[in-house]
């Protein structure tokens, strides 16, 4: 009798066994998927985090699904909090305080635009009581401006090509997301 019929499986026999094993795995994974759908539901949780600025304490509370905080979260919120504690005449030219509603508006925009991998913007006060968010990365300058009595807008400049774009925020979310994506 040839060796191949006693000690080894033929190619055909191997194929049959492999197919049977795959079917068993498929069935297993399928069951796991089905049970996951019925059991696992994301649960919203309330979260809190404290920030300090110039001797004052702020508490931010929000709801999410318990996911890890993105790298930009802490520096961004700290930047917003630091705006709210600027003293009068912080620029030495008579600036007043930054308008809290504009801070809120900027927070909401960042919440909607940034993804976990987004680079963090700098939060910069304006003497007029407004603020701007700035990125200077990869040869691109991007500034989003929130100023008193004006529609928010953004200005983007590519330092290499010289291309410059200035648009109102409203209606240009897609363009802004694209530019922020180029900063990553």
């Amino acid at each position, binding site marked *: 009798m040839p060796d191949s019929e006693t000690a080894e499986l033929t190619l055909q026999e191997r194929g049959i066994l492999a197919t049977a094993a795959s079917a068993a795995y498929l069935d297993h994974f399928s069951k796991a998927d089905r049970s996951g759908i019925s059991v696992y539901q994301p649960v919203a949780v309330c979260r809190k985090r404290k920030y300090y*600025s110039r001797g004052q304490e702020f*508490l931010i509370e929000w*709801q999410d699904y318990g996911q890890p905080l993105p790298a930009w979260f802490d520096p961004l919120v700290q930047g917003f909090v630091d705006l709210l504690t600027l003293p009068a005449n912080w620029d030495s030219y008579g600036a007043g305080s930054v308008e809290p509603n504009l801070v809120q508006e900027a*927070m909401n925009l960042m919440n*909607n635009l940034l993804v976990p991998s987004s680079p963090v913007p*700098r939060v910069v006060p*304006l*003497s*007029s009581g407004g603020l701007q968010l700035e990125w200077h990365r990869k040869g691109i300058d991007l500034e989003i401006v929130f100023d008193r009595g004006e529609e928010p807008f953004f200005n983007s400049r590519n330092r290499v090509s010289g291309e410059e774009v200035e648009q109102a925020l409203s209606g240009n979310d897609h363009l802004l997301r694209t530019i922020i994506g180029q900063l990553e």
Partner: protein
Amino acid sequence: MPFDDDPSISGDENLLRRIAASWIHWDENGNPNISSAAFKDEYLSVCLARDGRPPADAIRNYAGYGLAAITAAHARALNQRVARDPLPEEPAHTIVYGRKKRGGIVGALRDGASWIVFSSAGRTRTIGGGGFWRTSLESSWIPGPTQGTSFASCATLVHH
């Protein structure tokens, strides 16, 4: 009150602007970069560097501030008017007048600025506790699943 350009201020004269710590961004190489926000005012206050006065004198009474300069020619090239506006406490006070927010003007002004004195302020944060007033910022952060990239919902920032 618009200002007319003063031709007696020559193009190569330095116009000094105090730079608050909030306008300084320290890059990854430790270099202090000035935000365009420092040059955004329609009536931009500066002072003339002249009459043998040391430029740093402009921040003598302003601890923690840096000092930057743009030339009058640079400002004029960006459709700004440069005019004297003496003040009792600062006889060399000058205004760079003109719209700056749009059209890349403010960024170009910033790009033409050079440091005269820079402060290390802004590299550290003031950390503390307490406070005496309380307010809240009601936010309506929208839940993520329906908004694609939204991160959180129902955020409230409370100041103790």
